């Protein structure tokens, strides 16, 4: 991907609310779907056991609600993405069509995985979270706009502040969230580091 194409500064679109705290990655993608050796189908498995019953009949879930069809932003609660390190979880979210996740807080590994695949996750205060949820439940057609340059989220007539680690923000707005190139540049220093670490040298001297 060219750097210009990787730049992410704004995400705009309708938003879907996923209520509740501590939503773990087992809920986001149940483990049985991790047996596939590509991420290609992960979008189909997003929140699978909450969206479908044993006979694969759709259950009541915001992602099955026609009002939120085509939403690009997901609004979540606290400690979203806790549990396993499976990248299948952010892959499922992204491949489902979600381009940004906004919540009160995120599990560390999950947030790192989202950054690694170019999916911004940002946090908002408890107060703003309640207002956003209220707004989109009453106006499912409302367009939200996340701006990583100004660290703001616009919804209806309101604007609120969003937070994310500065390094992650930089990575999105400079298009360097895919960090292979950044890391590769320093390979000479990496080789040097390996020589300095006593255990890499087998404690030879």
């Amino acid at each position, binding site marked *: 991907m060219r750097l210009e194409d990787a730049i992410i500064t704004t995400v705009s679109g309708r938003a879907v609310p996923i209520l509740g705290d501590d939503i773990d990655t087992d809920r986001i993608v149940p483990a049985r779907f*991790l*047996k596939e050796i590509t991420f290609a189908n992960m979008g189909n498995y997003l929140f699978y056991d909450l969206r479908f019953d044993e006979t694969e009949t759709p259950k009541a879930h915001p992602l099955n609600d026609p009002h939120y069809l085509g939403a690009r932003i997901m609004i979540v609660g606290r400690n979203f993405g*806790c549990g396993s390190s499976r990248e299948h979880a952010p892959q499922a979210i992204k491949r489902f069509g979600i381009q940004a996740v906004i919540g009160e807080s995120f599990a560390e590994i999950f947030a790192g995985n989202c950054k690694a695949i170019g999916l911004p996750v940002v946090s908002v205060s408890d107060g703003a979270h309640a207002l956003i949820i209220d707004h989109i439940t009453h106006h499912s057609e409302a367009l939200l706009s996340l701006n990583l340059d100004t660290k703001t989220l616009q919804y209806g007539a309101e604007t609120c502040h969003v937070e994310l*680690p500065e390094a992650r923000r930089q990575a999105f707005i*400079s298009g360097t969230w895919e960090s292979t190139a950044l890391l590769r540049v320093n390979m000479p220093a990496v080789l040097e580091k390996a020589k300095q670490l006593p*255990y890499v040298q087998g404690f030879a001297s």
Partner: protein
Amino acid sequence: MSSNTLYDHVWDLHKVATLPTGQDQIFIGLHLIHEVTTPQAFASLKERGVHVAFPHRTFATLDHIIPTLSQQRPYLDAQAEAMAVALESNLANTGIQFFDPASGRQGIVHVIGPELGVTQPGMTIACGDSHTSTHGAFGSLAFGIGTTEVGLVLETQTLALNRLKVRRVQVDGLLNPGVTPKDVVLAIIHHLGVKAGLGYAYEFAGTTFDTMSMEGRMTVCNMSIEGGARIGYVNPDQVTFDYLKGREYAPKGEAFDRAVAYWKSIASLPRATYDDIVRLEAKSIEPMVTWGINPGQSVGVSQSLPLPETMPDSDRQTANDAYAYMKFTPGSKIQGQAIDVVFIGSCTNSRISDLREAARILQKGKVAAGVQAIVVPGSQAVKRQAEAEGLDEIFKSAGAQWREAGCSMCLAMNPDKLIGDQICASTSNRNFMGRQGSPTGRTLLMSPAMAAAAALRGEITDVRELL
């Protein structure tokens, strides 16, 4: 900001550069891989014609999907077979050491790393698995990563990381009889909550950990992630060095002495400062059982289940969700709750000391009628050791099943699954909805001794009655 902690020392020693984004580029000293979180990473390398940079710093095994009844190939589950084949072909010609079943060293990645001596103090350790925190028991910075990051480590042996804050979790005193490291970590998570660790590394310190075995320390560090902390560690000490001495991949002879000097040099200093310190008393901890859908929702075995109306707003919703899913009644006793299945295993509690503890209880009787109990050793080496000690005979004559090594019913990616809304007394680490293979299955987390006691009585039992 913390200073002079093991975290600071190891971070600084492994820092390669500050990246333009402000993150640090950190050298990864040990990379552990398994079949589930790697195929896409290898595919990406292959697509771009890139080689593994430091193949001797990566070790592989097969654990998540491996069946535990018969491991004969091809596996009955075609998808599992495909995953195993993918791992084998991805490793071919890379120079990466593969601890496959034929090697006699296969097992759960977080069990075999330590037992082979691959895991050592003062390393940075990454693995595409959140329970990599286990290896922190040795005084390493060990953490879970996603598949894209697995690819980065294969390609560059480094990662772009943000420095964490450090919280010292200090527990002092001797544990009461019947109380184990599993209870300690469940109590810590209960006390601090499942979100408290966000943005932190946990340093487990205090006399309770000083006197704890390496296997116990692994159990505690394993569940750091359940408390929200990506990293948990214990400073290395004589217990650590004694454990490592003579292990297959540990340094030998004079190199071992030099290693010990390095290992001592990275420990937190007495003048270390922390971003936060919390304290608990060991004597206040009793055998713990989870009742809900996250590992913080636990009670001491003598306690009643909490009342959602008395909880702060922030916990009430999750508690109500948990009661709806678990079909339990607020205020009722956890003791006496009937169970259907007992699972003794997982990277939390499948080591030899865990199996000895379970056997000590199971030898007192028979698994209750209608209860299915399975014991799954964490590695082939644990299995051999248990059989040498006759533990397998104790399990089998009590009516429990004795299986081959693997992750098994911890996350049920193999045929070991709960059915319908069965309730499982489990020594694993996660009681999430659907975790053990049935979308309505229910998991109660506890220690191996408590799980064994539940197996005998067919209900949640205070193991102290059986000691």
